[in-house]
């Protein structure tokens, strides 16, 4: 595990450095928006990693309800927190891109609103895990996560189902959509780098959660010993 970390951390850092350079210097300038469009290379991969983490949270929650394993509960908690981190960056970089392009920071269109709701759902999930008392917190959190995940496909489809201020899909959209090949290469490199970063965060956060579980158990045992003396 330590060996894997020793390799994967420098690889991710170098990859992020290279892809940032590609995004800022090498990718062609978009004709209508100009240089500010380069936010795209951070904005979309952040959203992708957030979706991926929420999906992992969903799967881990289902597994927890089925098997009641501490490992799946730890993975669910870790994935939700990492997802919230990436979703936060998505929600900050979006308005920073919107202001110079649309002339407004925010609008309550379907894509933006459902994304904000998604962030609120997973922040609520983390608050629930942190503050709910009693032995059923994990079960409650897992059930909450399964219902909460319903918003992910809604966010994804919102720009297809509704007319929004947010642009129509550039990738996987209809006729006339698509990226310039030079932009697509830079985008895919950034997507790979961010995915790797997300996985690193997930592994790190999972280890922390496992330690937390072990410590909680130790505290409970200590309290039992104290009570029986």
């Amino acid at each position: 595990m330590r060996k894997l970390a020793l390799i994967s951390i420098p690889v991710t850092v170098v990859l992020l450095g290279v892809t940032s350079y590609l995004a800022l210097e090498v990718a062609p300038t978009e004709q209508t928006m100009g240089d500010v469009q380069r936010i795209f290379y951070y904005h979309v991969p952040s959203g992708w990693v957030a979706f991926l983490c929420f999906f992992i949270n969903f799967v881990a929650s289902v597994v927890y309800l089925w098997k009641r394993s501490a490992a799946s509960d730890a993975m669910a908690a870790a994935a939700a927190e990492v997802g919230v981190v990436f979703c936060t960056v998505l929600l900050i970089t979006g308005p920073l891109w919107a202001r110079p392009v649309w002339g407004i920071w925010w609008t309550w269109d379907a894509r933006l609103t459902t994304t904000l709701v998604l962030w609120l759902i997973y922040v609520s999930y983390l608050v629930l895990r942190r503050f709910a008392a009693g032995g059923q917190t994990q079960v409650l959190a897992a059930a909450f996560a399964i219902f909460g995940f319903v918003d992910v496909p809604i966010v994804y489809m919102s720009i297809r189902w509704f007319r929004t201020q947010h642009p129509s899909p550039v990738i996987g959209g209809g006729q006339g959509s698509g990226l310039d090949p030079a932009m697509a290469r830079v985008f895919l490199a950034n997507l790979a780098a961010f995915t790797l970063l997300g996985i690193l965060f997930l592994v790190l956060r999972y280890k922390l959660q496992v330690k937390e579980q072990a410590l909680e158990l130790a505290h409970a045992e200590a309290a039992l010993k104290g009570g029986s003396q």
Partner: protein
Amino acid sequence: MNPITFLKAAYIVAWVVYLGYPGRILLRMGRMEEERKDLERKGTGSPE
């Protein structure tokens, strides 16, 4: 405001979050390790 300012702001915010988050996790791990050692010192045994 110059659009480049928004581009710079977005990149700075993203990097502050992406560098700060693992730092926060490592701090929490450190605190937890201290707590674990403290428990061991009190003679309750290793939690792991």
